[in-house]
């Protein structure tokens, strides 16, 4: 029924199956929308946040999905600026995943503020000293860049492409895409960094606080670095999940291998920086404020030293080593495990830098604060996944996202 919209030379599932899939995920989406409306109408009392947990699940989700969406800016940088041409076969998908991640982050932020109708104050009354201001500006600008990068892909739809204006618009946009990719990389470096700075500048919170370079705490650089390292892993992970669901090979192994190898180098170098930062913080920064490392990992039911071990060793060093050794990363099972671990690792890092910061007591007579999110928080956090899945389903069905699909899956 919708065959006129489907790209030529590729096969898609029957329309009823596609609609059934959309409906099933749509139910999850509606559940999230219902929770979102509750939060907007009744306020943030619908959450389990409190005065100790001003930042909680949503801010973590924001930081995590922005880090995972980092594949868009880093792959764009490699493809357009460093000229790694093979990556043109995955860049469309990286951009789409980035677009989903960033639009989701903006949506969650819109739910997370106490007075959503005043959100524009962050631009109008901007405090240039605040890391959050930098986040808001760069995030909005970069989201616009991602939208601009996504538009040419939409214009490639068979029916839209028939209209001469859109055909030429898409063609010309492709030609200047390097400019947007460079702008995106610049903006993304800054807002990934400023998200790290959000925690790093908190000099009243010894668990988060880091010294740094000029106005930027070390977490500024670590967040950008880790997003560049783990974002492409997440792009590969979603590509592999898409291949599994569609039952088709969509990207050639050499493309995946190249991206995985670069991720390995980024992750390996990031881990060195992260370990140095952790040692300096544990041996110098925290003791100068009267804390030992173990003060942040004891006397509470959840945050033990295991969390640091999992983040650095299991989800950091281990995947980096596997990705750096060709034989290991070319083993499919190991590759899937590794990219999953790397994606979990960056999410865990963001969790620690948001939730554990709030949980750890600072005053000597204060106690650890634990928190379990409400169903409204969980539903609104799942909402972006449902929205992302639907957008991927629609985009995959009607747009030529994977340039190698035809070659890899010839239609008889």
């Amino acid at each position, binding site marked *: 029924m919708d065959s006129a919209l489907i790209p030529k030379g590729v096969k898609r599932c029957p329309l009823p199956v596609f609609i059934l899939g959309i409906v099933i995920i749509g139910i999850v989406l509606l559940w999230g929308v219902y929770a979102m409306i509750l939060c907007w109408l009744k*306020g*943030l*009392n619908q959450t389990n*946040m*409190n*005065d*100790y*947990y*001003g*930042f909680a699940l949503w801010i973590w989700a924001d930081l995590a999905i922005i880090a995972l969406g980092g594949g868009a800016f880093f792959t764009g940088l490699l493809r357009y600026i460093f000229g790694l041409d093979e990556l043109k076969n995955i860049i469309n998908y990286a951009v789409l995943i980035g677009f989903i991640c960033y639009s989701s982050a903006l949506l969650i932020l819109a739910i*997370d*503020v*106490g*007075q*959503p109708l*005043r*959100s524009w*104050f*962050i631009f*109008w*009354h*901007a*405090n240039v*000293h*605040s*890391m*959050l*201001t930098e986040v*808001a500006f760069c995030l909005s600008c970069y989201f616009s860049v991602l939208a601009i990068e996504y538009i040419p892909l939409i214009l490639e739809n068979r029916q839209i492409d028939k209209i001469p204006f859109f055909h030429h618009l898409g063609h010309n946009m492709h030609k200047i895409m390097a400019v947007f990719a460079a702008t995106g990389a610049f903006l993304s470096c800054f807002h990934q960094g400023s998200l790290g700075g*959000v925690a790093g*500048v*908190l*000099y*009243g*919170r*010894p668990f988060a606080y880091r010294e740094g370079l000029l106005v930027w705490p070390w977490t500024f650089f670590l967040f950008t670095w880790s997003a560049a390292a783990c974002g492409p892993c997440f792009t590969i992970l979603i590509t592999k999940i898409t291949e599994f669901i569609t039952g088709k090979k969509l990207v050639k192994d050499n493309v995946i291998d190249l991206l995985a190898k670069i991720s390995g180098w980024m992750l390996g170098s990031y881990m060195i920086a992260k370990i140095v930062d952790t040692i300096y913080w544990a041996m110098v920064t925290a*003791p*100068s*404020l*009267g*804390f*030992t490392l173990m*003060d942040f990992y004891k006397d509470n039911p959840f945050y033990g030293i295991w969390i640091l071990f999992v983040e650095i060793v299991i989800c950091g060093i281990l995947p980096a080593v596997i990705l750096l050794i060709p034989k290991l990363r070319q083993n499919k099972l190991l590759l899937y495990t590794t990219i999953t671990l790397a994606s979990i690792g960056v999410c865990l890092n963001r969790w620690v830098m948001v939730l554990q*910061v*709030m949980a750890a007591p*600072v*005053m*000597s*007579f*204060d106690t650890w*604060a634990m928190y379990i999110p409400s169903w409204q928080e969980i539903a609104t956090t799942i909402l972006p996944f449902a929205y992302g899945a639907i957008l991927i389903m629609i985009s995959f069905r009607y747009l030529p996202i994977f340039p190698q699909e035809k070659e890899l899956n010839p239609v008889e």
Partner: protein
Amino acid sequence: MKKEHNHMKNKKFGMCIDLDKCTGCGSCMVACMSENNVPFREDETDKRKSITWMKVYKITNNLSFPDTEVCYIPRPCMHCEGHDGHSPCVSVCPATATDYDMSTGIVSQIYTRCFGCRYCMGACPYHARYFNWWDPVWPAEMEKYLSPDVSPRMRGVVEKCNFCYPRYQRALDNAYNDGRSDIDEDEYQTACTQGCPAGAITFGDLNNKSHAVYKLKKSHRAFRLLERLGTNPKVYYLSSKEWVHRAGDNYLEGENLKNIKKSHH
């Protein structure tokens, strides 16, 4: 008037709380809530959602009977000066909804500009900032008792102690009407100071040699909470007990309290 202001030395309002006198009665909390129209709910079981601009903490020396000692620590906003007004909370607010006033040393909160991102709450190590999780609702007959000078806050914004700033404005207005350019020490006192039956709280200009707080802050009994972080708070505590001084900050095992304090003064 503007010229006169320029010639006036900047004030630095602050507080000295004598913990040797504090009985933990909570009058300061009641006075504060009443003066500042602090909202409350029928069920205040979850204390981490209760708004208490002034909160009294109870601490002990953790020794068993008969050596047990108890101390109560009233905690208003510390009005941190940080380094040159770089308070932990002020510098992080993305919408300039909180401000460090160099002429008074008071950290203000602009409720109508706050959009409720709560970054300032995360930045404050004293938990002195509170979010309005609900719309403020007072029993109908109680609305007549609200302070007319203090604006109630709406749902979704952060609020905190402002050293009863409307009282300062009123004192300035009175002085202006009398043709004076400045106010006396007793003309501007916070509600908690006046509400304390033990006289444990002293309030005034930390820069003014004639004010009681100026002398009290120099007492050998004086210390501040979390000085090592560099928050530079304007609330001083007085205690003759070393364990109380030690509870005011974090120390590594075997660290000498006096050496640490000296290096940070």
